[in-house]
Each structure stands twice: as structure tokens, then as C-alpha cells.
């Protein structure tokens, strides 16, 4: 499948001199990895090989990669039900991810968490969360812990536009601002609260909800990984310096349904709208265009990267498919530490 773009939709943003151009190739690979991972997840679902459902991140890759590339391994993230992208962007390995999705013992959570609960303390991932907005407390608490322990880590709370309806977010943003906690609230506005357009659920301006607490606020094109990254880097550096929390709205789009089974979407959004985003605002394509235009990559290189990533995915999914399930007696283990 060709990932190179036909038509760039927007002028590339200007880059700071510090950003090394070749680094964007790594971003491309990371976004592609998420894209191909999610496409494989969909295949596993369609092939009835995966228990339960999954919420695909396709279309939003620039947010996870742009933000997580601004973080260090010891920095924390909290993720959402649509969390595979965040986990991978923060450094999760493909094989343990697939194994968890298939309910296998080799998975990140020994098969006890599944798609919506992947956690990996080695990469600072405090867990995906199936309660919308439910991790605002965890991320803010992690930031509180950072401040109390006196380290220069930061915590990132990923959440969608749906979480803007949850009170916990506002309680914790208030405290984060009061106490200047090193936390980034990253609102991935993919425009849909499940099956409802966010404009039907969200009064006023999204960003003004954060500015009301005196929080530094930015809103960026979430399809442009370079802009997301540069902004996230600035906000993360700021938090690291002790200058307090920030709120970053990334305008993006969920290319697929709410979950893998959400096929007929015509009652809440048009095919035309989806096609426009897929053909003109695909974050992977947009970066490929830019790389090509700036002579940092060509078709040959893109094909090589795609082959490499596809092989990684294939190996990982085969590992997971062949991995054993947990032993039945594990069911009541790890209820308590």
C-alpha cells in the first residue's frame, strides 16, 4: 500500500533550527508502525482471532508520536480506550501488545487487561483507561509525585474530546495549576464523542476551559506531527522547568469507527467527510509529502521502511498468535499486591 501523498493539504509549519530533519524519518516510522499495527488489529477482529473489541487509533497517529517523542522514557503517560498508539509511541513492544490484545500470558498485563488497559511501567505508561477521563487523576497525581520527589519528569494525560464532559478533568486541572504540577493535558479532539459530534456536547471553546484555570493553552493541527511535536516539546520543557501544567488541544480525526465493529457510520457522519480526511488530512501522508519535498526521503526509502515495519508487525502478530493463554489458576492472582 502506498503511503506517499498525492496532494498536500496545508503548508508545512516553519521548524525551529534545533529540530534535526532526519529525526522526522523516525517519526514517520513510528506513525507507520501504529498505522500498520492498527490495520492488523482490525484483521484480527475480522478474522475472529481477537476476543472482544478494539478502538483503532488510525488517523490520530501524529498526536501520540508528536507528543511522546517529546518525552523521555522515565516520563509518564496515561492513555485512553483508544490507546494502542500512545503505548507504541511511548515505546511498547509490538509482540507484547499483540499478545495482550489476544489475551495471552505473554501480553503486557498477562492477558488480564486487554486492549483498553495496557500498562507498561518500563516505558512510563501508567495505563490505558476505559473510563473516559478517568486517568486525569492518575496523571495529575503522577505529576504531584514528580514534584514531591523532586525529579524533572513530566506526566502526560491523553484524553479525547469526550472527556471534556467529565468533572474530574476540571478538578485536577485546577489543582495542577494551583500547585504548578508538571503535567500536560493533551486533548485529542477527534471530533466524536463515540457516535456524537463534539459540537453537540461541548459548550464554548475547548481551550477556554483550561485557560479558565490559568493553564498555558495551545491548539494545534493534530494531523501535522511536526507542529504537534514542536509544541509538545515546548510545553514539556516548560513543565520540566517547573513552570506548571499545559493544555494542548490537537485537532484530529478518527478515520475508522468508534470501535472495530462500528461499520455503519452514516447516521452520525458522512462518507464524504471521512474521505476528505483520509485523502487530504492523513498524518502519515502529510509527513511523507514533507519528507519527499525536502529531499529527506524518496519512494524507495518509504518502501523500505514500510517493508521493515510490516515484517516487524508480522513477526509480532505471529508470536502472539502462537503464544499460550494464561493458566486458569492465574484468575485470582494479583488481586492484591
Amino acid at each position, binding site marked *: 500500500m502506498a503511503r506517499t501523498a498525492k496532494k498536500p493539504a496545508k503548508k508545512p509549519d516553519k521548524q525551529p533550527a534545533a529540530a534535526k530533519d532526519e529525526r522526522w524519518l523516525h517519526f514517520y516510522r513510528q506513525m507507520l508502525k501504529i498505522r500498520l499495527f492498527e490495520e492488523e488489529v482490525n484483521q484480527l477482529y475480522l478474522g475472529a482471532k481477537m476476543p472482544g473489541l478494539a478502538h483503532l487509533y488510525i488517523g490520530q497517529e501524529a498526536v501520540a508520536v508528536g507528543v511522546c517523542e517529546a518525552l523521555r522514557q522515565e516520563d509518564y503517560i496515561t492513555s485512553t480506550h483508544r490507546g494502542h498508539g500512545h503505548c507504541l509511541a511511548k515505546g511498547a513492544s509490538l509482540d507484547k501488545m499483540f499478545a495482550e490484545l489476544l489475551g495471552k500470558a505473554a501480553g503486557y498485563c498477562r492477558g*488480564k487487561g486487554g486492549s483498553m488497559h495496557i500498562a507498561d*511501567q518500563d516505558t512510563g505508561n501508567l495505563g490505558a483507561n476505559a473510563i473516559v477521563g*478517568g486517568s486525569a487523576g492518575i496523571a495529575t497525581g503522577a505529576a*504531584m*509525585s514528580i514534584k514531591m520527589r523532586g525529579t524533572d519528569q513530566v506526566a502526560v494525560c491523553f484524553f479525547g474530546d469526550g472527556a471534556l464532559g467529565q468533572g474530574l478533568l476540571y478538578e485536577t486541572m485546577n489543582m495542577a495549576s494551583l500547585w504548578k504540577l508538571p503535567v500536560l493535558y493533551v486533548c485529542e479532539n477527534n471530533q466524536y464523542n463515540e457516535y456524537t459530534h463534539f459540537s453537540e456536547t461541548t459548550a464554548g471553546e475547548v481551550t477556554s476551559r483550561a485557560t479558565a484555570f490559568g493553564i498555558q493553552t495551545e491548539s494545534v493541527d493534530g494531523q501535522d506531527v511536526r507542529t504537534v511535536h514542536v509544541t509538545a516539546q515546548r510545553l514539556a520543557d516548560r513543565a520540566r522547568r517547573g513552570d506548571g501544567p499545559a493544555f494542548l488541544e490537537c485537532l484530529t480525526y478518527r478515520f475508522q469507527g468508534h470501535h472495530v465493529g462500528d461499520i455503519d457510520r452514516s447516521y452520525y457522519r458522512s462518507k464524504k467527510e471521512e474521505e476528505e480526511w483520509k485523502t487530504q488530512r492523513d498524518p502519515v501522508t502529510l509527513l511523507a509529502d514533507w519528507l519527499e519535498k525536502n529531499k529527506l526521503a524518496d519512494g524507495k526509502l518509504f518502501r523500505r521502511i514500510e517493508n521493515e515495519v510490516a515484517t516487524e508487525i508480522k513477526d509480532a502478530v505471529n508470536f502472539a498468535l502462537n503464544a499460550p493463554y494464561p493458566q486458569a489458576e492465574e484468575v485470582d492472582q494479583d488481586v492484591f499486591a
Partner: protein
Amino acid sequence: MTLTAKESGTTREITFGQAINEALAEEMRRDPTVFIIGEDVAEAGTPFKVLSGLVKEFGTQRVIDSPISEAGIAGIGVGAAMTGMRPVVDIMFGDFLTLTMDQLVNQAAKIHYMSGGKLKVPLVLRTTLGASRRSAAQHSQSLHAWLSHIPGLKVVVPSTPYDAKGLLKSAIRDDNPVVFFEDKMMYQLKGPVPAAEYTIPLGVADVKRAGSDITFVATSSMVHVALAAAESLGGSGINAEVIDVRTTAPLDKQTIIASVKKTSRAIVIDEGYERYGVTAEIASVIADGAFYYLDAPVKRMGAMDVPVPFSPVLEDQTVPTAEAVAEMAKELCGRL
């Protein structure tokens, strides 16, 4: 290690509130990761004054006054606990637990399990229970049964200063989320507490009074009701044993069953609502573990299944009393 007051050498009489305060101060001294967060916990020392003086010793960085945001501080507690701290979250009234439920039930309780045993949540959430303070329906409930229902949470319901101190120290050192219920009517209750350090393990019941004719299994405030009932029965020739479960989760079934096998009769007394309550769970444990030893049906006495009313004439009817327990005991023992 559990020490009885007698074994410990020097003991003082201190209040339940002072015992809580001492436990927190000692744990904060020994472990710099322990901190307190809650509404009016610092200079005010809570409306019950239980935390008085702690901010003076530990400063506002470790005794943190929060906004009135119960869900938020519970969530912050969970996140801090997951990342190297041992927070003690103060929820002033047990009724406000409703506001923290997602953080306790869906987050704190499940994170260790959902992560395949990798992440830990060493969080203590202290709150209160108990009626008869003329505070009406939103400041008087005893909601410990709700949390005892949830796998992954430990629930402590101490009845004496000695137990409160030893159990709270264990709760703070525990690597799991622990919800610690203090009867707000008991803060001034005095009892012997060793000056030397001690802890009491979670999940071990205590025989508060040995007896042979009937077992009263009780929690928190109701331990004192049970003890008063037991004393009042002396004249009737009924010798009641009083078991204080001390923690509803984990529940020390063994001690309860052993007692009922000995006495053959049981009344379970708890200040939570009777319907679907702690008393129901414990009665079922007795029925299951001591059925062939029973000489009478297991009886339950909980709070009346009404919102706690304000007027004293009404409120006082809603909580089990020593008189009611004694009457029930006489009936079960055939002494009426």
C-alpha cells in the same frame, strides 16, 4: 507483630483521634513518601481536629489542603501512589465517598490486577462513618459495605484507639489501596495505647470479650454496643463473646466461625444499612462455616433502611442499641 497493651511496657490512655494522629506522625517520620491530602487537613487539622499539629511538624508540602474536590484528590492519590508515594487521602465524611467511587472502584482497586501485577497503588483513604451526631442524611452514613464489595480494596473498621493506631500504620505500609473508616463519634473515646511502636496486621479479627453462650460479631462503633450488651446480660446468665472483625476486607472468617462453633448462636451488628450489608455477608459466612453447630438462626442488626433522619427522636431509632442487642440475645438463648 501484634502486641497487646499489657505486653508493651509503657502504655498511656489516649483518644481514638490521638491514636490516628500518632499513627500518621510516626509513619510520616519513618517514610518520607507518606503525605496527607484533603480538605482542611493542614492548619485546621480537619473539622474533627484529628490531624492537629501535623502540619507544624511536616509542613504544608506534606500536609496538603486541597480544594473541595473529592474525586480529584482521590485520583491524585491514586496517581501519586502508582509513582512512588504513599498518599493518605482524607475524605471528611463517609457520605462523600460517592464522589470518589470511580477513582476507588474502577481505578485504585483494579490497577494492580489489570496490569498483570506490575503496577501498585499503596493508597490509604481515610474517612468516617457513623450516625447519631444529628447531622442528617448526607453526613451520617456508614458506607463501608460498598467498598468491601470490591475486589482489590482492603477495608478497615477499627473500634479502639489501640486498634486504630496499629491498623492505620499497617494500612500505610500496605502496597494495596486501603479504605480506613473512623467512627466520628469515637474520636474522643479513650483507651490504652503502648508508647512503643506496634502494628496490627490487616485481616485478623480480635476477641474483645470471651464468652460461651452467644457470639456478637461487630464492627467499629457497634463493637461498643456489643460489649455493652454483653455486660448487661450478666444478670441473665448469658455469657456473650464479642468478636471485633477489625477489617471487613479481608475478613477473618476463621475467628468468626471458631467462635460460633463454640457458642452456637450469633448476632452480627454493624452500622451500615442492613439491606445487602456487612451483616448479611458475615451471617452467610457463619451459616456456611458453622451451620451444624447453630442452635438458633443467625440474626443481623444494621442501620435501619431509611435515610438517616435529623430529629433525635427519629435518628436514635435507626442505629442498633445495646438494649436491642441484649433483647435479641435473650430471645436467641431462650431467656425471654
